[in-house]
């Protein structure tokens, strides 16, 4: 409910902004809606969405698949964590564009290159949040688990990772948002396609209503993915608010 209230507030603000900012930089909500219908009817939005979602899903999926194990390894093998973490941060702080020449050289201009660019951005928060979550594990519970003869795998699956879940989820949610941004970057810097391509097209030709449609589509994907992750977290955190049975 509060969300809807806030949404209405945003819409009012937007309408006001579109009227007071000069020279059509901000299109009105109505104009944007019309543009969305136009793009949808022409099938352009769907095609671009399909392209971008493919890139995003493969890059983000890979980031989750690689980031969590790497974060776990860094958190569990002290030496490895110590040796790597500074380099991971260095890598995370390096602008993605700096890697573009190399990526083009090694992976070309297609899906692989784009997926890799998305992966590179999304994997950082996943690794680093997982790493922090694993380091934050409850030492008493881990000792308890060891005392039952549980092996490393069992300890991680049942003790460390469930405890690190809040870290994991923020990591994944942040990774998803960065992944989306990088989807656009990838689509602009390798073979131009998808929503990133439309963004460039409408931006360069000053079609602001269409431009806003693309921007909002991207935000919406972000919302869907992060809300999905929230639901997963809620399911896995039922124990926090136990209803008496």
């Amino acid at each position: 409910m509060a969300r809807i209230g806030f949404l209405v507030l945003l819409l009012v603000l937007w309408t006001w902004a579109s009227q007071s900012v000069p020279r059509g930089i901000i299109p009105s909500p109505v104009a944007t809606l019309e543009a969305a219908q136009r793009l949808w009817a022409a099938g352009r939005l769907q095609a671009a969405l399909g392209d971008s979602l493919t890139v995003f899903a493969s890059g983000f999926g890979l980031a989750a698949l690689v980031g969590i194990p790497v974060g776990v390894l860094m958190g569990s093998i002290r030496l490895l964590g110590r040796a790597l973490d500074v380099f991971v941060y260095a890598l995370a702080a390096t602008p993605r564009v700096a890697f573009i020449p190399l990526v083009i050289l090694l992976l070309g201009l297609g899906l692989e290159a784009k997926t890799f660019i998305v992966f590179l951005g999304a994997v950082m928060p996943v690794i680093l949040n997982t790493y922090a979550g694993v380091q934050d594990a409850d030492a008493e519970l881990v000792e308890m688990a060891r005392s039952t003869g549980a092996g490393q795998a069992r300890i991680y699956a049942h003790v460390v990772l469930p405890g690190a879940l809040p870290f994991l989820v923020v990591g994944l949610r942040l990774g998803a948002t960065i992944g989306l941004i990088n989807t656009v970057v990838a689509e602009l810097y390798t073979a131009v396609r998808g929503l990133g391509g439309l963004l460039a097209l409408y931006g360069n030709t000053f079609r602001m209503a269409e431009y806003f449609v693309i921007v909002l589509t991207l935000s919406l994907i972000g919302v869907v993915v992060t809300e999905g992750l929230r639901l997963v977290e809620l399911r896995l955190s039922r124990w926090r608010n136990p209803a008496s049975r």
Partner: protein
Amino acid sequence: DPFRLIVSDLETPLVPNSVMELAQQGGYFERAGVEVTFVRVQQTPLAIAALQAGEGEMANISVDALMQLAARGGTDLRAVLSPNKSLPFLIAAAEGIETVADLEGRSFGVGRLGSLDHSLSMTVLQRAGVAVDRLDIVSLGQPNVRAQALLAGQIEATTMSIGTLISLPDPEAVNVLLDADAYYAAAPVVTKVNAVPQAVLDTRRAEVEAVIEALVLASRDFAADGASWASAMAEARPDVDRDDLDQLATLYAQSWSVNGGLQRDELEYTASWVAQSEDFQGLDLPSLEAWVDFGPLDAVLARIGVDDSAGMDSLSR
């Protein structure tokens, strides 16, 4: 307040557009009685945004963007000058592709499908006898990305400027299929102009004219003596080989906007040409008056006279 000139070069470029920076270096603005500072941004859309936000008085932007704005009715920008009408583009290809005939079926990098550089290149190639519908067009955004992709072997040919070609780490690695002259001959359109908002024209017209005057005078000096451009450039860009500069100077001998670069016939040709590009589908062609104002340039030319000696940039109204 100084007069802020927005350019989309990060340093003095290796093309005649360098006249803006060199005019500053050579004191032309000072002598014309205007204090100019440069604002550097990356691309035309940003230059336009900056102009609209009042972050500069004049910007060097691409013609198609200006026409887009005019066609969508959302602008009061006017072109008043073109220091470098047409950037010296050429078509380069990977090793093994020696002539345009070899291009058939190969991949070709453009900035964006439907953009001016796309339609220009296609026209040029068509004129050269290439069946452009048999090319594999890849859109690649920024010019440097196109060059990198070419070097990395991910595309087989693309359009680039002479400046980019010279700065490649290994220029021998690419073959120039069509040089800048051939390119311009095939598509003689104006690609870049200096635009100012109407409000600036209304309030700071004297400074606008002073800037125009300085740039025209500088262009005339470089047109008169190519070597003077090369030595000015050597000062501005010590990293570039002097031989390369001298070579470029001869190449550019005919490229100077000695009369301000705004000629009605060329602009009308350009306008009709841009109107055919994909980006303009469904848009009405704006009249020249909606995006060009000859007034300030004509006032300057009235003061300093028209240059018709060299036969370049001949006046057309």
